[in-house]
Structures are given as C-alpha cells and as structure tokens.
C-alpha cells in the first residue's frame, strides 16, 4: 500500500512537472527570449527523477523476490533429502546373512564292461553359510555342510548324508599394518583348490591331488596371520599359521601341531592377472611336510571373454606327487569351456586323467555344468552333470572363481 500511495503522489508531481511553463511577458523583440527555468524547478525535477528511480528499483526488487519465491515454492528444499527406506526396526536385522548352496550331481561311468552300476543322481552337498559382523573388529562366518559321498561307480551302497561344521571362523578385519588374521576351523590356505569349496571350482569334480594335502584336503582348527606387501602393481602375501593337526592325526594318538607357511606373489598388468604361490604344511609330529606350488593366470579383456589357467603341484607326506593343469576359456557371457589334466604318482603307479568341462550360467546364482574324464590306466570314462544353485544373500567370491 505505501508503494501505491507513493506512486500516486509521484504521478501527480510528474504530471505537474511536465506542464509547459507559463509564457514570459512580451517585450519589444518578436522572438521570446529563452530564459532558464528557475533553479528550484531543476532541483525539483532531479528529486522527482530520483524518487522515480527508487520506486522502480523497489518494484523490480519486489518482482524479483516474487519470482524467486515462486521458484522456491516449486523447488526441492535445500539440504539433504529426507531419509528413505530406514533400516528395519527389528532384531532380525542383526541376524547373519544366510546363503545356501545346492550341488546336485548326476554321474555316469562307462568301463569296458559297459555302463557302471554306480551311475546315478545324488545331492552331493547342501551348504548353509552364515555371515555377520561380530563387532567393528571381527566378522564371523560358518559353513554347515550336509554332504553325500559319491556312490561308488563300480557299485555298492552309498554312505548317505553326513553333516558337519565344515568351517566356523572369525576374521579379524581391523588389524593395522596390512595384517589380516583368521581364527577357527577353516579350509587352510594351502595352494588353490584346498581353500576353495567344491561348488566354487570350475570343474564338476575335485582333482585327486587334493588327497595328498589331506583326506579331501586339509581343513583344520587353528589360525593364520597374513601380511600384505605392495610392490608397484604387484603384491606379495606372507601367511603363517598353526593348527591342531587333526587331519594328520585323525585318531588323536599324539599331541602335535601343524604349521603352515605360504608365500603368494600376485601381479596385475592391464587385463592380465598372474598369481604364483608356494605352500608348506609341516606336521610337527612326524616331521614330514606337505609342500606345493601353484600358478594362476587370467586374461580378461572384458566381462564376457576370459582365459584362465590354473596349475598346482603337491608333494604328499609319503613322497607321492600329484597335480593338475587346467585351461578354461569363456567365449561368451554365460558359457565356459575347460580342459584339465590330472596326474598322480606314487612308488608303484603313474595315473593320468584327461577331462573336459562345459559350463552355462543362467545367472550368477544358477549354473549347469557337464564334465567328462578318461583315465587311460583304468580305461574308464566317467561323466558328471552338475546343477549348482545359490540362494540367499549375495556371497563375495574369490577372484579366481568364474564370476
């Protein structure tokens, strides 16, 4: 309102100021002399112009403010947005993440006598993995496995299911100085396949060389401490561990620990990853070590093509030697083709086995794989068809696993 009143007053003043000046009295000259306006009129004009400018500025400011108010009314409020999808207010939110792995296998064996009697279908394993943070410094992981031994191909009864805590361990994740530690019962980090669950391997079966590390591998209770040393684009990991030694002394006849030492060199150059490792398991009860060396090579130019080479050699406690070398090619996003050569040598025998594998993923949670092997010494062909399915929370896989 004051603005309007001021405008009205100013308008009247301007109208008055714009009136032509009254004519000057006539003199002897025909042309009227030009006379400057009175000084007070000029001042009056200047004052009115200033008032007009001020009013126009005020109006402009008001228009601008109204414009901004209108824009602000439509705009999102400044500052962070309101919280979305708050964490579930439930004690269940603290429960472990659960992942289940099913591994269904169909096996067919063919010998010179024909199809072998143990050709059948069975659920090789069902694993339940439970993972959760324990506190800011540790994470716990447990894998409870329900496993069925493979029915003997040459016939005979299957042993049925056995259940055991395959792994139950604590990872200390907040250690300084590039250290990490694991305590509990777990697959000991010896080589490549010993620390990998069978359903994570790129094959339908497990190389027999694993039995040189321990019966179906070395899984024991104890602890490891690992130190990571960065060297440019490479890294060296030194791992030392101590374990109860149960796999070397299943009957519990002596008190002797087993020590683990492992060195792993890993290098990356563009699309190529290379890992070289050496491991020793020392049974302090007998003094006979198990030693091994492993190689991992991966070339992955993109997410849908890759080439992986895995090779591992093991010397068992009794001096037996074994190992495998495997090649896997990924020609498309969902398909992997692989070949593996196994060798096992003791005092009396030298066994070879040649195997081929074909894998298809429908998604990272469902996989179909077929594999076939030929053992020349036994003149035996075996084939496995495998369906692996994963459900539950998303597990994080080691880098050498397909996906």
């Amino acid at each position, binding site marked *: 309102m004051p603005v309007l009143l001021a405008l009205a007053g100013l308008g009247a003043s301007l109208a008055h100021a714009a009136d032509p000046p009254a004519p000057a009295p006539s003199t002897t000259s025909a042309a009227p002399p030009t006379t400057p306006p009175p000084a007070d009129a000029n001042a009056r004009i200047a004052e009115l112009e200033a008032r007009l400018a001020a009013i126009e500025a005020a109006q402009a400011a008001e228009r601008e403010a109204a414009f901004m108010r209108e824009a602000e009314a439509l705009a*999102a409020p400044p500052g962070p947005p309101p919280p979305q999808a708050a964490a579930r207010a439930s004690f269940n939110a603290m429960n472990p993440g659960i992942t289940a792995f099913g591994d269904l296998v169909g096996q067919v064996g063919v010998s010179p006598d024909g199809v072998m009697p143990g050709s059948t279908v069975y659920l090789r394993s069902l694993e339940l993995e439970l993972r959760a943070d324990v506190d800011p410094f540790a994470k716990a992981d447990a894998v409870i496995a329900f496993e069925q031994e493979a029915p003997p191909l040459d016939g005979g009864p299957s042993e049925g299911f056995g259940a055991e805590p395959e792994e139950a361990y604590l990872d200390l994740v907040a250690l300084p100085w590039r250290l*990490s530690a694991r305590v509990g019962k777990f697959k000991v980090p010896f080589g490549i396949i010993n620390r990998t669950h069978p359903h994570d391997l790129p094959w339908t079966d497990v190389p027999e060389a694993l039995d040189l590390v321990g019966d179906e591998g070395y899984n024991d209770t104890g602890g490891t401490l690992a130190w990571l040393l960065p060297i440019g684009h490479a890294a060296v990991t030194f791992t030392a561990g101590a374990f109860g030694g149960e796999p070397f002394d299943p009957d519990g006849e002596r008190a002797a620990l087993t020590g683990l030492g492992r060195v792993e060199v890993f290098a990356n150059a563009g699309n190529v990853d290379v890992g070289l490792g050496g491991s020793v398991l020392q049974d302090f009860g007998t003094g006979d070590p198990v030693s091994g060396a492993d190689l991992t090579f991966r070339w992955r130019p993109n997410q849908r093509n890759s080439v992986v080479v895995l090779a591992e050699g093991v010397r068992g406690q009794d001096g037996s030697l074994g190992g495998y070398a495997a090649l896997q090619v990924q020609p498309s996003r969902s398909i992997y083709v692989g070949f593996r050569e196994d060798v096992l040598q003791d005092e009396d025998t030298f066994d070879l086995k040649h195997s081929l594998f074909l894998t298809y993923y429908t998604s990272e949670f469902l996989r179909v794989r077929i594999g076939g092997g030929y053992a020349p010494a036994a003149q035996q062909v075996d084939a496995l068809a495998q369906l692996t399915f994963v459900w539950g929370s998303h597990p994080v896989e080691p880098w050498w696993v397909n996906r």
Partner: protein
Amino acid sequence: MISFFSALLLLASQASATEVVCTLPWLGDIAHRIAPDAHITTLARGTDDPHFLSPTPALMARVSAADLYVENGLNLELWSERLLDSAGNPKIRPGQPGYVKATDNMVRLEIPTDLTRAKGDLHPEGNPHVWTDPLNAPVAADNIAAGLSRVDPANAANYTANAKAFRAKINEAMFGADLVGFMGGDLLARLAQSNKLDEFLASKGLTARLGGWAKKGASLKGKPIIFYHQSWAYFINRFGVKVVGFVEDRPGIPPTAAHRDELLGLIKANNVKVIEVTSFYDPKIPNLLGQQTGAKVAVVAGDVGGTPQATDYFAYIDSLLNAFTQ
C-alpha cells in the same frame, strides 16, 4: 645435482600426498577435481562392469595404502567388502574417518518393495547407478570433500571451495551460463530435482534461455528407448526418456528367445529408434534387434573411460547425450 634434489623433492611430495582410493572412475574423476594434489587411484576401469570386479591381491595392496577410501555404495561394489577386510587398513573401514560413501544424501530411485531374486539381481537399497544424473555429482563431491577434510584438515578450506566450484561448474554445464547467471545454479538444480523446472521456465517465458545439457536433453523427453540393463534410472528420471523395455529379461538375467520376440514387438509398436548397450555388455542381441527393426544401437560408456569419448565426467555426460539424441 639440482635435478637430483628436484627428484628427491618430488618423491617427498608424492610420499606426503593424501592417498585416495576410489572404487569407480567417476568418483576418481571428481576426487581429482576436489583434491588435485592428492594421489588418486581408481580400482575399476570405465570398461569394467562395476558389479563384477575381482577383489585381487593387487587391488588389496592399493587399498592397504589408502588414507581415504571412496565407494559408491548401495550394494553396487560387492567386491569392496572383501578388499576392505583383507587390506589391513583399519582407518578406511566403514564408520572410520577415512571412509566415504559417495551416495550419502542422494535421493535413491527404484528401492524394491518386494525383495526377491525372482525379479533378478536387485539392489536392496535402491538403484546404485546414481552418476548418470549430473545433479548427483555435486552431492558426491560434497561427500568426498568432507572425507578429505577429515583426513587432511589442514586443507579443508580448499576441499570445500573446490567442491563448491565443482557444483557451480556442473550447474553451468547442466543449465547454461545465461540461465545460471539469471537465476542461480542451485535454485535451478533444486527445481530440476523437483521435476518443476520445465513448467516454471515455460510459465515465465524463460525456456529459450535454458542451455547446457538440459537444453540438449530436451529432445529426449518422451523419446522411446530400449536399454540393455537397468542402470539408467537416474538418467531417465533427469531427462524424461521413455523406457520401452530392457534387453535383459530381468536385471542380470540374459534375454530368452521369447523376451527377444517381445522386444521386437515393442520396438515396432513404439517406433523405437535407439537401443542402448553399455560398452562392457555383449552387443550381439542389440545388434540383432537393430538389424531387424532399423533401430540404431548406441554403444555408451557405463562410466568415465567406458568409451574413448568419455574422458572425464563432463565428457561422459556429453557422450551419453550425443549417443541418445542421435
């Protein structure tokens, strides 16, 4: 002798530089703008699918040396947890001063109401591909600046100023210098975030003054496009693209033959002219669909560095708009 001492000084300055490790290239690019003197390492490349990076020991080694770890979060880099757990570097773990989740304080889209794998590979906290909306980049910059200020408080003022300058640069690139000069970039950004910018500018007769990405992207409003994966929610929301369908059956699930037939029908029915495929996906099926329908296949960068054109964050957004407006 002088060059020897210069080299020593250079080495010393490099040794004392703040070590910043970013999981994704767009975060590395922004971190470099906020802290040009820091040593920035990016773990994934623009040509990598960020869902499936392998947590190799080489990456663990890089993380082990970090003063600041910046990740996208929202369950995108599932591999990140393994790196943090194995790096032996407690100062960058979540909750510590050296940890930054770049998507904090962002409005998330596509938070699933029904969390089941039957719907594909869902992200429980919402769609994590936030960086395809340029207006999310300044929020990430603020988060990174805050993290840098925590681990290097002596330079906090610089980081804050650089984040502010980055926000101004993004606003200018988004709306054009003229309109930003007239209305202010922050107000324009907030109008855009409330999806009221077009309406407001039209009501004031200001549409012609709109410039930048917003002007270029105006032709995308309602444009029917087939996308490969559900990673464009934020771009679609910002530029008003009409999503006709996805090449993947469901997120992470390759298309079946039936789904391909369905897409063919959708492309014809909606007069789709562009099929998007991110550079790390197999273009075979999009090419097949393109050949059968005449639609163009746009191979786009999933992140900074994903194509030769996407050299930095600004060039990345340019490259997306060039590809989709073709």
